[in-house]
C-alpha cells in the first residue's frame, strides 16, 4: 500500500483492487468464463469419446466401426450442440458484465481522463480488469470440465492441445466481451464520462445528436 506501490503499474493495481471492491461482478465474470471452458473441454471430451469407441471397433470390422460412430454421434451429438452454445452465452454474459462495469464507473473513468489518461491506457485498464476477473474462471472451468467429461463421456480429456485450446477459447470470449465496452470508451468524450452523461457506440457527435436510442 501507499509508497510500496510506487513501482506497480497503476492500471494493473486498479484492476486487482477492483476485484476486491466489486466481488459479485468478479464472481459472475469468472463463472461465465468457467462455463465457456467447461463447454470447450466437454466438446473435446466428446470428440475423444467418439474416437475411442470407433477405434475399439476398428480391427477387421469396418461395418462395426460405422455403426459405433453413428450410435455414439446420435447419443452424444445433441449434447455438443447445446455445449457449443455455451461459449456464445459466455461471451454475451462477459460483454454485459464488462459493459455494466464500465457504465457504473463512468465518472471514475472520466476523472482518469481528466487527469491525463488516454483512451489506450483506459482500454488497458479494462483489459486488466477483464483478465483479473476472468482468469480465475479458467482453472475452475478446466477442473469442472474434466470431471464432467469423465462422468458424461467416461473419459478424461488429457491432451494438452485440447486443454490449451479450451483456455484459448475462454480468453477469446473475454476479449470478445471487451469489444462493446472498448467501443463505448473510445467514442465517449471526457465530459460524457465525467458528468455521467449517456455514451454512444458511434463516435460523437453524430450519434449523440440523434440520441434516439438514449445512449448507455
Amino acid at each position, binding site marked *: 500500500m*501507499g509508497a510500496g506501490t510506487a513501482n506497480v503499474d497503476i492500471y494493473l493495481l486498479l484492476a486487482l*483492487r477492483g476485484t476486491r471492491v466489486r466481488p459479485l461482478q468478479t464472481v459472475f465474470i469468472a463463472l461465465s468464463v468457467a462455463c465457456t471452458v467447461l463447454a470447450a473441454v466437454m466438446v473435446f471430451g466428446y470428440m475423444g469419446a467418439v474416437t475411442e469407441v470407433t477405434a475399439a471397433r476398428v480391427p477387421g470390422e469396418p461395418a462395426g466401426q460405422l455403426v459405433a460412430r453413428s450410435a455414439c454421434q446420435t447419443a452424444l451429438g445433441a449434447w455438443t450442440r447445446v455445449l457449443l452454445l455455451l461459449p456464445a452465452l459466455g461471451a454475451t454474459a462477459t460483454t454485459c458484465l464488462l459493459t455494466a462495469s464500465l457504465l457504473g464507473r463512468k465518472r471514475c473513468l472520466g476523472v482518469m481522463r*481528466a487527469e491525463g*489518461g488516454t483512451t489506450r*491506457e483506459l482500454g488497458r485498464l479494462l483489459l486488466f480488469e477483464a483478465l483479473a476477473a476472468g482468469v480465475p474462471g479458467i482453472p475452475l472451468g478446466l477442473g469442472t470440465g474434466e470431471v464432467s467429461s469423465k462422468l458424461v463421456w467416461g473419459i478424461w480429456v488429457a491432451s494438452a492441445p485440447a486443454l490449451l485450446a479450451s483456455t484459448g477459447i475462454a480468453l477469446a470470449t473475454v476479449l470478445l466481451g471487451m469489444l462493446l465496452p472498448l467501443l463505448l470508451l473510445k467514442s465517449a*468524450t*471526457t*465530459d460524457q464520462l*465525467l458528468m455521467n452523461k449517456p455514451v454512444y457506440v458511434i463516435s460523437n457527435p453524430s450519434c449523440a445528436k440523434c440520441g434516439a436510442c438514449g445512449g448507455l
Partner: protein
Amino acid sequence: MGEDENAIIRCHELTKFYPVGEGVFALQNVHLTVYPGEFVLLNGPSGSGKTTLLNILGGIDRPSHGEVIMRGRKFSRMTEDGLALLRRKDLGFVFQFFNLIPELTAWENIAFPLKIAGVPPDEIRQRVSVLLSRLHLDGRANHYPLELSGGEQQRVAIGRALAHQPSLVLADEPTGNLDSKNAREVMELFRDFNRRDGQTFIVASHASEFAEYATRVVSLRDGRIVE
C-alpha cells in the same frame, strides 16, 4: 497581441449552446486571458456558466463556438487523447465532489498523475511525501477515500491536482462541499501554492467572500462576463 503571447491560457468568443428544449446558452461570447502566476476567482451564482467555462478551459468539454489557446496550442485542433496528454502535463483539476478514485489510497491518488506521466518511482515517493506534508495528511497516506473526512478528501484531491506540478490549476467549487473552516483552509492552501510555487489558479466559486484570496475576480452572469 504581445500580452496575449505571455498568457498561460486565453479564450475568445467562447459560446456554449445546449440544444435542449428551446435551447440554452451556458456561455455567450466569453473572452478571458489568464497570465502566469495569477489567482483568478470566477464568481457568479449557480447556473451562471462557471463550471461550463472551467470544463472548456480544461479541454473536458468543447465549445459550440470560439477557441481556447493554451501556450500556443489550439484546443479545437486537438483530439480527446491530445487534450488528455496536455492535461497530464500542464493542467490540474480540483472538483467540488473530490472525485477521488475509491480503489486507491490517499497516497496512490496523489501519485496517480505522476504514475501515468511515467515519473520514476523514487521521484514519485519524494514528491508525494512532500505534498502529504504540505497538505497536513502525513498520517492519512494509507487510508482509502471513504475513510477520510470531506476536508481530508479535498486536500488529497488538491494534492492530486498539484502532484505533476501543472502550470495551471482549475478548481470547480472546491469549497462547495466543505464547512467554512475547511473551505478557508482549502483557499489558503491554494494561495500558498500560488505564492510559493507560482502556479496559476482559476477557481470557480459562488461565494464572493473568497475574493480576498484572488489577484483578480471575474464575475459571470447568465453565461457572460460582467466585470
